[in-house]
């Protein structure tokens, strides 16, 4: 893990609490609601066994270097892309490569000529095995068959554009924090690994929170609450 990102980790800290599951938010509730909720839960305790477990970390994998639980499996990619080099060491903005994130539903895997744009000019690393592979694909004009790491169910519509616009452009949060809400601190990984639950409750936990509308403004609003916003 690269130094100097302590601020980010702090930034992440409260996010992670919210992400920490279903019961995490209750302490913010009013007393009456809390009692009511507990009563309900007690009443329905017997049916709890039927609940899909809220997988917090589980047996899959160890902790990532920044302390998150790895929730998804290690995904082997055709090229072991070092996010830590690009986003971590060199502090390249995520959107430099994932350029569609701010204007489309999908963030998009960078097009191949994007990689070549830089790597054609970086003579120093051309003999590295990973870069060699990259050149191989480029010369064959073959797209790289990346594996999806954050693959939401098919009935879910997640819009990268709106989240980036809101938190990066409007609220002016750091890009690593903005992306990191859902993707974890990718700057500390090589190939990405899923570290957030990305379950419905997890999404809602954030949508129910009040967020500043703009940087410098004190007006807050929470995320939309309509089923059809995310379900298609």
């Amino acid at each position: 893990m690269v130094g100097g990102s302590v601020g980010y980790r702090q930034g992440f800290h409260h996010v992670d609490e919210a992400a920490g599951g279903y019961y995490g938010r209750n302490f913010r509730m009013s007393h009456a609601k809390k009692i009511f909720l507990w009563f309900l839960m007690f009443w329905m305790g017997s049916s709890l066994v039927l609940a899909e477990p809220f997988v917090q970390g589980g047996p899959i994998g160890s902790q990532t270097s920044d302390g998150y639980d790895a929730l998804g499996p290690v995904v082997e990619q055709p090229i072991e892309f070092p996010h830590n080099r690009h986003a971590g060491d060199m502090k390249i903005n995520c959107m430099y490569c994932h350029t569609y994130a701010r204007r489309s539903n999908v963030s998009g895997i960078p097009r191949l000529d994007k990689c070549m744009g830089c790597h054609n000019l970086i003579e120093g690393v051309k003999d590295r095995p990973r870069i060699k592979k990259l050149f191989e694909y480029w010369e064959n004009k073959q797209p790289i068959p990346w594996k999806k790491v954050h693959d939401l169910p098919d009935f879910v519509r997640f819009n990268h554009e709106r989240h980036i616009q809101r938190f990066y452009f409007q609220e002016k949060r750091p890009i690593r924090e903005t992306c990191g809400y859902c993707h974890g601190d990718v700057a500390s990984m090589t190939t990405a690994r899923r570290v957030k639950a990305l379950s419905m409750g997890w999404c809602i936990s954030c949508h129910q929170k009040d967020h500043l509308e703009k940087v410098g403004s004190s007006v807050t609003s929470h995320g939309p609450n309509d089923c059809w916003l995310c379900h298609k």
Partner: protein
Amino acid sequence: MSTGNMDRRDFLRVLGISGAAATLAGCGHTSIESGVEEVMSYVQPQDFVVPGIGVFYSSTCTQCGSGCGIMGKVREGRVLKLEGNPESGISGGKICGLGQAGVQAHYNPDRLHTPMMNIEGGLVPISWERANQLLDEHFGTKSSLQGEQIAFLTGGVSGHQRVVLENFLESFGSTQHVCYDAISTATGRAASKTVLGAEQPLWNFSKARLILSFGSDFLGNGVSPVYMAREFAKFRKAPRGTLIQIEPRMTLTGGNADRWYPIKPGTEGILALGIAHDLLQHPEFSGKVPQEVLDLVKNYDRDAVSEVTGIGADAVRLIAAQLWNNTPSLVVAGPAVEGHAYGFSNAAAVQLLNVILGNRGNSLEGQSEHPFPQMTPTLGSYRALAELHKKMVSGNCQALLIHGTNPVFTSPTHLEFSEAMKKVPFKVALVTHIDETAGQCDLVLPLLSAMEDFGTHIAEYQPSGVELMLQQPLMEKLYPETKGFGDILLDVLKKRKPQEYAVFPDYYSYLKAAVLKAKPVFHSDEPDEHFWETALMNGVVKWEGKPTDLEAKMVPLEVPEPHGLTTDYPFYFVPSIRPDMRDGRHAYLPWLQESPETMTTVVWDSWVEIHPKTAAQMQIKEGDVLLLQSATGSIQAKAYIFPGIQPDTVSMPLGQGHTQMGRYASGVGANPYKILDPIFDAHTGELALHATRVAIRKTGENQKVVKDEGPTNLQNGQKLVATLSADQAKLAREI
């Protein structure tokens, strides 16, 4: 020259399972996954390509000959949906169901994807090398074929495909471009030409206050249904025009009529003369009408007409009065008028009303002049096929190329076309699907679909000026072994006439050069590339033109009574044309098969429409399998009780009854072409589609009619579709 093309092809490439592409798993994939699906990116896309966002490309619909401009939504290399192109004056941003189904023609699972060759009576896949070898053998430089020995049988073809096709024939010294259309309107066009001076005049709905339609289904399957529908919608706005429809079987257009009259098939001309008789009583006409015409109509008084046509004398008077009071009006004739032994006179009599009413110059005008006569659409006719047939039988035809038409399926039994095919030594079909005709060919070449090929089109009906419609690929080709129509012909031409065609690596470059050559005609001084890019982007290049005058005249003619019913064949047989199936060329499109035919709501089938009164007399219930016997042959179909039909008439839709054409078409329904009697129009020699007489017999079997309609087709007192009298509505005040 072609690099731009190749680039486009690159980003029209399908990305496999990509980004948000694969939804087929549906509700199956219900939780988050990692490392299961692949996601790929383009190697070098253009800047406007953003995954997850659709890009619209303009093109031209080739599902029928109307030449509607369309836009295809392309995402991740796949064309997803077609919309109308607002740039196109014909479609105006709208599109019909048939057009929408173009994507299914492209993605159809039964598409042909390799060349096929007939070996010992069956088609077997072969390589392109072998196919090219065969083509070279027959059409190459060493070919001994000459002149009329080679014929090219097509459906409607226009634009540069027609130019290439005719150049191809010309290289053999042949002019035998035979154009066949199984639902041809050649008779009507000839009548219109004689009376109005134009085969297809412009119909100005906007200027007409009343449309009197004799069996013309201009909203469903006329010359340009989408344009007509758009115009008709305007016609219905304030001041609302009236539509009167007279036909033996209610068409889609008939369903929209303010007043619908059932008429005995074939007596439309007589009714028209009866109306003319009534109209000419007005003193305004005295001295202005040729004596021949007066002589002609004099015998057609209301009562006489009423007796023949089955339309009451009052109704004749009323129609005439309506016409008189609502000038300018527009009188149109359709297939129901033309399809008789004297269809020409019938149609001419109907057009005569236009002349009498002075609609010329108001609601009727001539289409504008044409800057590209060599590119106008070839219009099919039955007679052309019959003449080709003669040559085939006599052994004069040595090689036959077939594209865009399916005569084995659509020609009547008595023509024995498939027998004639056997006499042609080398038959080549250029198709996307193996249909009945291709199944009998020696070589079948797989074509690119309309979503994969380049081309230009010019529609028959040009509402204003002339529009050169461009067709371009919306997607990379699905099957590597398929080839464009133009490319195949160009390859042959390159060998035969290298000096002219060798410069063109492919049809695309030929097309581009050809369109750019026409640039001066469009008075454009833009740079070539810009002109071409703009043309592709808009999908249309417009040539300004003005409507021309028509030379209408009152032609004296003779309208005999139709040959009547006999005890052997006591019913008129009216084959109806479905807006979506047409002559059956679209039967392989599942959306269209599943889309209920509006008047009956039947799907996936053929049926016999029969009036409730007749059905009650004959004790026929819905679903009774009936045997339709004509002098020529017999077919079976289920009965459907249908009030919108003349009681002496039975009707059956065309287009079903395929034995080939893939899983969605074959084995569905029955083919009415096979029982049509050999009756031809006396003037044009066209097959008279509506002249057959049949007998009906119950087979005793009853099958469920698969339809959307429930046990009732009435509203049962609920306010579902309310109707208001037109004079009470305040259309002018509406938004």
